Each structure stands twice: as structure tokens, then as C-alpha cells.
């Protein structure tokens, strides 16, 4: 078995108004960061997973995202996996 470290990034689905993102964007624009745009605010969730392969680790994390970590009606998520030495 191998140890993996997963990072899940969750953002509101494209097409859903991200009010926090818009507010931060407006603040940036009024603070001379006018070249920055499309600000999206999200969540960052980290966890360790033990699995026999990277594919299996991804499948487990993906199932957890669908079941609890993200709400697919309103959120998109992205999983990044790294193999680690210790759990």
C-alpha cells in the first residue's frame, strides 16, 4: 500500500455569481491592481489517503468529494494528489 496526500480545491461552479470573488475583485481594482480579473474564492481541503495505486487514491477522494466535500449542484472541485513517504 502507498500513502498519498490529496489537496481538494472547491470553487463555486462557473455561471454562479461568486459574490465574495466580485467584492475582492472590486477592492483590488480600487487598490491599483486593475489588471487582475475573474477572482474566485474557494475552499482548500487537505487529507491523506492510503491506497494501492494513485488511481485508487483518486477514486476514493473523488467519491468523498461527491458524497460530502463538494456539493455538485453549486460547486466544482479539483483534486491534486502527491505520493508521500508517511501517512
Amino acid at each position, binding site marked *: 500500500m502507498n500513502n498519498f496526500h490529496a489537496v481538494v480545491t472547491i470553487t*463555486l461552479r462557473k455561471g454562479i455569481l461568486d459574490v465574495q470573488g466580485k467584492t475582492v475583485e472590486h477592492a483590488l481594482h480600487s487598490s491599483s491592481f486593475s489588471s487582475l480579473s475573474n477572482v474566485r474564492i474557494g475552499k482548500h481541503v487537505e487529507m491523506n489517503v492510503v491506497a494501492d495505486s494513485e488511481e485508487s487514491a483518486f477514486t476514493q477522494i473523488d467519491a468523498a468529494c461527491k458524497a460530502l466535500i463538494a*456539493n455538485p449542484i453549486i460547486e466544482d472541485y479539483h483534486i491534486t494528489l502527491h505520493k508521500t513517504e508517511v501517512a
Partner: protein
Amino acid sequence: MNCGIVVFPGSNCDHDAYTAASSIGNARYLFHKETSIPSDIDCIILPGGFSYGDYLRCGAIARFSPLMKEVVTFAHKGGLVIGICNGFQILTEAGLLPGALLRNSSLSFICKDVYLKTENNATSFTRTLQSGQILKIPIAHGDGNYFAENETVKRLEGEGRVVFRYCEQNGNVTKNANPNGSINNIAGIISEAGNVLGMMPHPERYADSALGCNDGIAVFTSIAETLAMKKVG
């Protein structure tokens, strides 16, 4: 009427719901760790509050409580379930109602009285109201901005499943009357089978004239009438 009021860690409207329900019928608390619903319970109330600290998403963790599995079964068997505020959020997370509740468009927590238009009085939860009747009911939430896919909203509208809508005092449904950005000013919806209602406003907080308004009691008298009719039937 024998109401079971589910108490999650972080529920804070359970006592108000108990007081309102017990003024009409019988009520008792059900602890979230219980694994069965007593057989005489004929209505479940998921009260407002901040279950599990609103961690991750409002209502997301409460859905996994042992008792919620029983509530889902109870609902699938046709039992009456009403979710108020955080209870509504839990119902959407549990898949008993469509859509989701986003952060209020103002990003503020809003605590104030609003006016609701009764869009459908032919439900188990609104039968003692007139069609179009205006109610004054308090809201207190940070995440009450109802969202669903266009097709879902069309379906809800087409099937008369939007039960309450935010409106002006005179009943006009306007953008100004919408406190949180909800699609189509939606304040409450009902399930396809008609036995599960979710609403962000708090009828239990205006269920006694000693509080200055008792518009909310109609929801509880409606439930009691529905259950009495079922018994006779």
C-alpha cells in the same frame, strides 16, 4: 399531531419550534444520535440553527447524523417533514428537496421581518391559509440565497412547488423585497410528493400573538389539520 423536533449540535430554534408545535398538538425532541423515530411521530421538524457549526457547508454534516437516515426513510414513506432555515439547508443537502442555499447576495447575515406571499395554499403545510395571503415572518440567515438549475426552477414553478415567495407588504413580488438574492424570490419549496417543505423564514418565531405577530402559526395549524384529516381518512 405528534411532532418530533430533531436536535443537532448547534440547533438553536428547537425550543421555539417545540413551543409552537406544542401549542397546537404534541411535541417532543429527538436527539440526532437516535437511530429510530418513535412510531407515533407523524411530523418531523428540522429546526433552524448552525448544525455542526455550519462547517464545510450549511447542513452538509447534519445530513450524516444517524437520525437523518431515519428522517429520509420517514419522508420516502410519505411522512410530513418541515425544514426551517438550517433545516431547509439540511433537506437540500440530504436530497429531499432540490437546489441549494448559497451565501446571501449581500454577504451579510440578515435578521429582520420579511413578507411572504402564499403561492400555494393547497399543501399539507398551508391549507389554513388563503391563496395569495401575505404573512409577516422573520428571517435570520447568512446562506438563504436559493439556487437551482434553470430546468429545476421551471419545474418547481410549473408544478406549483414554490410555496412561499418574498414580497412587499402589499404582496408585490419585487427585487427590493428579495432579502438574499434567491431565484424568483423563492422563500419556500415543497417536494414532488408534497410531504416535505423547506423554508428559510421562521414561522415558529411568530407563532404567538404575545410576540407581536402570530402569522407563522398557520403553518402548524395546517400540519395539524392535514394529520387530523389523514386519521379520519
